[in-house]
């Protein structure tokens, strides 16, 4: 820069910078690494006072929403949705917004446990060489997919078992049950996608699709389409569940069923509706008696008849969701609810049921492991069949119910944790090799559901790594090369970026894409710029459900463990989910239904609370066959009197200052019983509630708003 460079010239240039920022963003060479530099040496494309925006993928859950992150002088300032990303169209959920509190979390793991990366990588290479391939297991989270692919290549070449994927969200979504039911019904595996937006009416059996279920941002868009559309009347949402979820709070009709009777009720409504419509009653409904079903479900027959009336006069989309499927009869429930859709003949039609599009680099559906498969892994660890375990992207010690005994089984294995945060699993690990935060990382994520197109979402670092962390892909590549032989052959890459480029090269010649490029480097540059690549055409799979009504489903009674008098509904906190507790602003977000912040509570119907002699903030002891918890009462007006509920998300014993020793872990009350699809029957537990006499005030938003009249001079009720 010459000395004649005047202030006027500078201002011109700065103005030009503002105009061109958007165009230049992400267009750099494929191997660009962003660095945080002092003011004198700005990262490329940055000029003082101007923001730079990078497209990447949100890692707060596995849905794969696109983000555009505003950076300023090398710091990430704000995460926004990527308006060009077909999954979220520029929108984000609260957890996506708070992703920066993960990046800048004061309690991140700042370096490898060995002190230096050379010896850390050596320890991985030693494990590869010292253990037999069958003695090594990889446990991966639901994101990111590029790392899952890399580990898949490694394990396949080295003769190890394929990596297992798991997450508490997939457990509470009952994903395995949902896809298994779809496979049984349609003869084709896949993850169902429910076109809520084009439906006339939606009957949701426990699907909390506006909160954490599968792809909440996309389903929220669907919900808006259901309610408001230029082309059809306002749609109706009916929610069947024992405890009103935040989704149920938006429903036009909320029907509180006894847990475990959802399948039976679905069949009863199907029978009533088909009788109302006239004609022969389909075989699948022949065995059900609506009056008995209502009796078992603990609702009035009139309530079911009213819903059947809605069903008979609308094309109804029926959705089986997590809470209804997390029962011993969950698979039958899922099949019964899916089959209801046949009455509306909506399989593969707008407003109906599809199988989700496969992502661009995916040839067949693959879902996460069921909790029963996780129990199998625990067995192998206990028996010594597995001697080395690598964990990335999931904290099984926290996310699995304690009853599965994962933590105890860790005594027998050499544990490698790639955790970004000091979570419960990292605490138990012999080796901690911290990965970058998602906003410091390369990668891609296959969009599993939520959109009609086939979408591969791209990640790139938006800031340089803050700490002495290293990309797990780079660690594995380096370790494989150290180990030599078939390991080195499996991962012949210079680094993670080269691996991703190699995988993306397969898409280079594909038509119908959101962009095309003449060569791999340009493709990668566009991939970064746009935050992914997707096909323009509709790639939803229309399933064949023609036989749905001719089957027979035995909607048996759900089994419950324990002698307690209350059904127990564990639900995922809509704002914290499984990994949000370490983000202070997520802690300070009021729970959407109770407005409680920073803690755990047990939801009890006010009438039940009165019988028990407890008020708000009275601490009670809740015990099941498997464990006991003490926590304050929240009198929740929208829960069955025979049911209590606790949110999952708090109760960490590690995971940083904002999460530790705060609230209780709902999983501690759960057992290890599974449904036929192998998902945990997390709703199959009965609990006892006893008064302790202590009080613990809950911090809640509503008290200052006078919901119960507090602070406004009204009477407390």
């Amino acid at each position: 820069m010459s000395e004649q460079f005047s202030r006027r010239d500078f201002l011109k240039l700065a103005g030009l910078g503002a105009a061109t920022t958007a165009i230049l963003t992400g267009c750099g060479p494929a191997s660009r690494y962003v660095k945080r530099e002092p003011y004198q040496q700005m990262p490329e494309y940055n000029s003082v006072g101007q923001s730079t925006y990078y497209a990447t993928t949100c890692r707060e859950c596995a849905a794969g929403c696109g983000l555009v992150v505003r950076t300023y002088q090398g710091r990430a300032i704000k995460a926004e949705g990527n308006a060009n990303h077909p999954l979220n169209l520029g929108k984000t959920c609260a957890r996506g917004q708070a992703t920066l509190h993960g990046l800048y979390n004061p309690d991140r793991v700042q370096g490898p446990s060995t002190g230096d990366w050379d010896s850390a990588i050596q320890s991985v290479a030693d494990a590869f060489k010292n253990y037999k391939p069958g003695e090594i297991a990889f446990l991966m989270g639901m994101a990111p997919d590029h790392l899952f692919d890399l580990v898949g290549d490694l394990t396949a070449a080295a003769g190890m078992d394929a990596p297992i994927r798991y997450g508490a969200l997939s457990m509470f979504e009952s994903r395995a049950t949902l896809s298994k039911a779809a496979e049984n019904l349609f003869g084709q595996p896949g993850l169902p996608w429910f076109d809520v937006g084009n439906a006339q009416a939606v009957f949701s059996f426990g699907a909390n699709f506006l909160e954490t279920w599968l792809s909440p941002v996309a389903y929220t868009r669907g919900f808006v389409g259901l309610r408001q559309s230029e082309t059809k009347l306002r749609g109706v949402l009916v929610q069947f569940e024992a405890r009103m979820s935040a989704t149920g709070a938006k429903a036009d009709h909320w029907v509180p069923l006894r847990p475990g009777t959802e399948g039976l009720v679905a069949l009863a409504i199907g029978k009533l509706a088909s009788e109302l419509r006239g004609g022969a009653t389909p075989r699948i409904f022949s065995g059900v008696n609506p009056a008995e079903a209502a009796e078992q479900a603990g609702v009035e027959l009139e309530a079911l008849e009213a819903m059947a009336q809605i069903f008979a006069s609308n094309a109804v989309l029926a959705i089986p969701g997590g809470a209804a499927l997390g029962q011993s009869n969950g698979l039958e429930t899922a099949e019964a609810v899916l089959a209801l859709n046949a009455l509306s003949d909506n399989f593969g039609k707008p407003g109906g049921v599809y199988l989700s599009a496969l992502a661009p680099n995916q040839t067949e559906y693959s879902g996460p492991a069921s909790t029963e498969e996780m129990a199998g892994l625990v067995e192998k660890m206990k028996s010594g069949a597995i001697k080395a375990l690598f964990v990335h992207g999931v904290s099984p010690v926290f996310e699995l119910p304690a009853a599965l005994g994962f933590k105890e089984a860790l005594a027998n294995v050499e544990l490698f944790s790639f955790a970004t945060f000091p979570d419960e699993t990292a605490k138990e690990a012999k080796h901690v090799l911290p990965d970058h935060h998602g906003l410091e990382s390369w990668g891609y994520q296959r969009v599993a559901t939520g959109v009609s197109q086939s979408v591969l979402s791209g990640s790139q670092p938006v800031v340089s790594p803050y700490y002495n962390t290293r990309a797990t892909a780079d660690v594995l590549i380096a370790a494989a090369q150290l180990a030599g032989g078939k390991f080195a052959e499996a991962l012949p890459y210079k680094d993670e970026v080269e691996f991703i480029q190699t995988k993306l090269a397969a898409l280079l010649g594909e038509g119908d894409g959101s962009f095309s490029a003449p060569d791999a480097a340009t493709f990668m540059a566009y991939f970064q710029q746009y935050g992914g690549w997707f096909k323009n055409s509709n790639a939803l799979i229309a399933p064949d459900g023609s036989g749905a009504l001719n089957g027979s489903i035995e909607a048996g009674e759900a089994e419950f463990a324990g002698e307690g008098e209350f059904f127990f509904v564990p639900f995922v906190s809509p704002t914290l989910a499984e990994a949000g507790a370490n983000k202070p602003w997520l802690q300070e977000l009021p729970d959407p239904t109770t407005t409680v912040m920073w803690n755990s509570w047990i939801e009890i119907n006010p009438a039940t609370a009165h019988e028990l002699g407890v008020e708000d903030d009275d601490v009670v002891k809740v015990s099941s066959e498997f464990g006991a918890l003490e926590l304050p009462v929240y009198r929740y007006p929208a829960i069955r009197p025979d049911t209590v509920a606790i949110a999952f998300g708090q109760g960490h014993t590690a995971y940083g200052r904002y999460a530790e020793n705060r609230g209780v872990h709902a999983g501690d009350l759960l057992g290890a019983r599974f449904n036929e699809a192998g998902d945990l029957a997390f709703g199959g537990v009965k609990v006892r509630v006893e008064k302790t006499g202590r009080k613990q005030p809950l911090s809640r938003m509503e008290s200052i708003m006078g919901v119960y009249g507090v602070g406004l001079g009204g009477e407390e009720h």
Partner: protein
Amino acid sequence: MIRPEEIKMSAEETGKWGMVIDQDICTGCQACVAACAMENNITFVGEVDSGYGRSMHWIRIERFWEGEYPEVKMTPQQPMMCQQCGHANCEPVCPAFATVHSQAEQLNLQVYNRCVGTRYCANNCPYQVRAFNWRDYQRPEPLQNQFNPDVTVRRMGVMEKCTFCIQRIHKAQDTAKSEGREVRDGEFTTACAQACPANAIVFGRVDQPESLVSQLKHRRHGVKHLEELGTLPNVTYIKGG
């Protein structure tokens, strides 16, 4: 009871920027609350202080219960933030002129470095949307790296509230000015509206009849909260389908 002359008064509003919130599709997911906190350098206060009602939310989602089990219903979620009143109750009571009406933007400004912390404005606000910094809340290293350089970081003893993301308004105005034009409706939006997965919050120019926010406001049954107080709010709520 609303008197006819008050209805006339609210029809004569002179606001420039306005918001329409559709409670029928708001799911209460809290994305707007998080987005607002991230954009505006809002501090978190922790469990104890939030329990005392000292949390600093500039936007909150109100919800109430109607009826008793099993006929219980949650009222439509109601995002509540500063209504940017045309006749604001907070303004005349400030002895320091810290909360004043901007002629240029037609908004309620909060001038942090004038604020002496009398809290008269918060006492007088019928919407209860002002947040007071009762302490200097700590944001340990490296959380402060996230600070938005366009927004002042507030300290103890200062009142704050929703600004309609005035930093974004100014940025858009600067860009428009350098290009010799007016700010276009939809050119930018507030952090809450940008994040909202349901598009329940729409922000824009209420002084332009063709803008989306004006159309929504007039096309459907919009209501303004506590309109009968004559506050002339610039936020319109749509209830029911």
